[in-house]
């Protein structure tokens, strides 16, 4: 037994009267480290802006009442929190999707959420743009986040309806999702051509995923969603663990397969939809974070809480890069995550093929 498998096998049962849990010291360590890194990144992120501050200024303004308190509490803290929470929600959604699809390369993108939201929001921006006489009725009252949420959920329903055939199969779900996403993508391209070029540019920023000017109104929905859905996902950990085996084994283990899959899928879709509605489709966090978490924690499948923390760290880090790289100009955070994430996905692909061959 080499060192890696030895580390993997360490899991101590923790018993309190009649209840018992598995305690994994390594996963706990990773979770604590990630939380510390997240705190540091958020603090660093809050230093940057039109008025540069030292870390001490940031801490003083957050916990006390200084001249910078308004900037920190109303502008920079909500943005930093939005980034962290969105990253956590996307990563959690990705961890669940990968377990259901039994494929480390799946992500909520194949569930129709991100492209559904993109098409809806691009349509809203373009048809409320200067070429069509400004925002009107429905759009003005609903706003872009609500439309993005509705569009994302509608996209997921479409994919789910087409992928269901006497049960839900991970393989079919992924491929149907890719097909439906292609239609949405072409519709999105078409919508980008019908409006004014300035509106198209605005829409382009949204569909790349951006944390620019995100306030408390973007933080609260994601925080609420996480508060409800994270415990729900943790309750489903047992059936999620069973779902990675073959269909017969899952049934043999006493899990109602289609019901468990559908319930976990619903959680994944809701998380991804809420996160996407707030910041746009931030690429690759949902894909990479669970895989990084899995390797760091040394577990057999993506650990949910650690994945969420890693996702938050990734997004906060990417936002820091996006804001400092071409400072004072700012890149959308989605550009940074995609440019960093895609090579990682390619590396994963190569590795998986190599493992399969040996």
């Amino acid at each position, binding site marked *: 037994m080499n060192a890696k498998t030895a580390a993997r096998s360490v899991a101590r049962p923790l018993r309190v009267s009649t209840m018992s849990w598995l305690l994994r010291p390594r996963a706990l360590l990773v979770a604590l480290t990630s939380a510390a890194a997240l705190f540091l990144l958020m603090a660093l992120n809050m230093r940057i802006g039109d008025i540069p501050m030292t870390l001490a200024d940031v801490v003083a303004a957050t916990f006390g009442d200084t001249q910078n308190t308004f900037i920190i509490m109303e502008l920079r803290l909500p943005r930093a929190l939005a980034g962290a929470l969105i990253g956590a929600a996307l990563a959690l959604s990705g961890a669940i999707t990968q377990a259901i699809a039994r494929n480390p*390369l799946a992500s909520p993108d194949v569930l129709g959420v991100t492209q559904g939201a993109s098409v809806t929001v691009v349509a809203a921006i373009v048809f409320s743009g200067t070429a069509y006489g400004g925002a009107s009725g429905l759009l003005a009252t609903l706003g872009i986040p609500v439309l993005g949420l509705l569009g994302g959920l509608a996209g997921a329903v479409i994919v789910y309806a087409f992928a269901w055939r006497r049960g839900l199969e991970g393989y079919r779900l992924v491929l149907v999702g890719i097909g439906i996403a292609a239609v949405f993508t072409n519709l999105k391209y078409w919508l980008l051509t019908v409006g004014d070029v300035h509106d198209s540019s605005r829409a382009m920023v949204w569909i790349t995923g951006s944390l620019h000017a995100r306030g408390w109104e973007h933080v609260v929905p994601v925080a609420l969603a996480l508060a409800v859905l994270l415990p729900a996902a943790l309750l489903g950990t047992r059936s999620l663990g069973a779902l990675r085996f073959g269909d017969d084994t899952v049934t043999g283990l006493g899990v109602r397969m289609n019901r468990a899959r559908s319930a976990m899928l619903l959680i994944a879709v809701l998380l991804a939809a809420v996160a996407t509605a707030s910041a746009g489709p931030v690429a690759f966090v949902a894909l990479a974070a669970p895989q990084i978490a899995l390797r760091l924690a040394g577990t057999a499948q993506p650990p949910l809480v650690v994945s969420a923390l890693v996702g938050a760290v990734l997004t906060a880090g990417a936002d820091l890069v996006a804001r400092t790289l071409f400072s004072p100009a700012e890149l959308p955070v989605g550009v940074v995550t995609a440019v960093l994430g895609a090579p990682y996905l390619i590396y994963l692909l190569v590795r998986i093929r190599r493992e399969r061959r040996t």
Partner: protein
Amino acid sequence: MSALATVARPPAKERLGALRRRRILALGGLTAALAVGVVLSIAIGAKPVPPADIWQALTAPTGSEHDIVVRSLRIPRTALGILAGIALGVAGALMQGHTRNPLADPGLLGVTQGAGFAMVLSIMVFDMTSLHSYIWFGLAGALLASAGVFALGTIGGKATATPVTLALAGTAVSAFLYALTSALVLLNEQAMDVFRFWQSGSIAARGEEVAWQVLPFIAAGLLLALANAPGLNTLSLGEDVARSLGQNVTATRAVGLVATTLLTGAAVAACGAVAFVGLMVPHMVRPLAGPDNRWLLPYSGLLGAAMVLFADVIGRVVAMPGELEVGVVLALIGAPFFVALVRRRKPVRL
């Protein structure tokens, strides 16, 4: 195959005869469909032109307004549609044959984003404004991206990539290039304006030059593809069998890869995101042409051209007096086809 089915089949000679009859009938049908597509594409448009005037424009142009519409707008557009359709249809059949993967489609494999990124880069670096000056860069970008995805699909494993691996490799490369592209166009509104019209996938307003520019690449790709067909037939028995029959497997694969990238690269650089032709066409042709690639490839080309022209005409008709890009129409037709293919209980085995 059960014993009963084997008994019930007619003798080999009779079956071959039936296949030959079907192939000749299908050839006639496909040629007729393409001819109808060409006629519709020249006859229908935002500006109604009476048939007599069209005939006059084709045979004895006098420089009237109708002549200009037909000769400088509709004919180049139709020609580009035929070229792109042939290229995408043949490339789709070739790619499905080489990957032995019924879901392989050149459009899913990063070609489009590769071309888009290279073109946006060239617009910004060299300050270009007209389509035919940056089409070379699009071509180069498409070729590089396509080769990259294909290599990823085969690296570290056997030459056959699974549908999921291939699709996801394409997704990864596409997403990477698209992120870079969107960063560039967000910095430059002029590039954004050119890019958004290119990426929506259209054969309109490309002008005669574009068709001439991509013609040599498509012609070379077609020649290579046809030369590749017998080798591909042998390869479909499996690499080991092909090798033991004395075939140079690496060379056959390389020729197929070069042909696919030339064909799709040229089509995509000229027309933008025109997806799903390469995916759909070989499946529709296979029952008619049989599994022999020497028949399958040309038939796919014919049907591809007809399909692009029909989709383009539909796009012109449904949104009169504006029009819907051919890429959107093809995606709306093609995606249900793709989904139906995935939902079939037994996927087509190649």
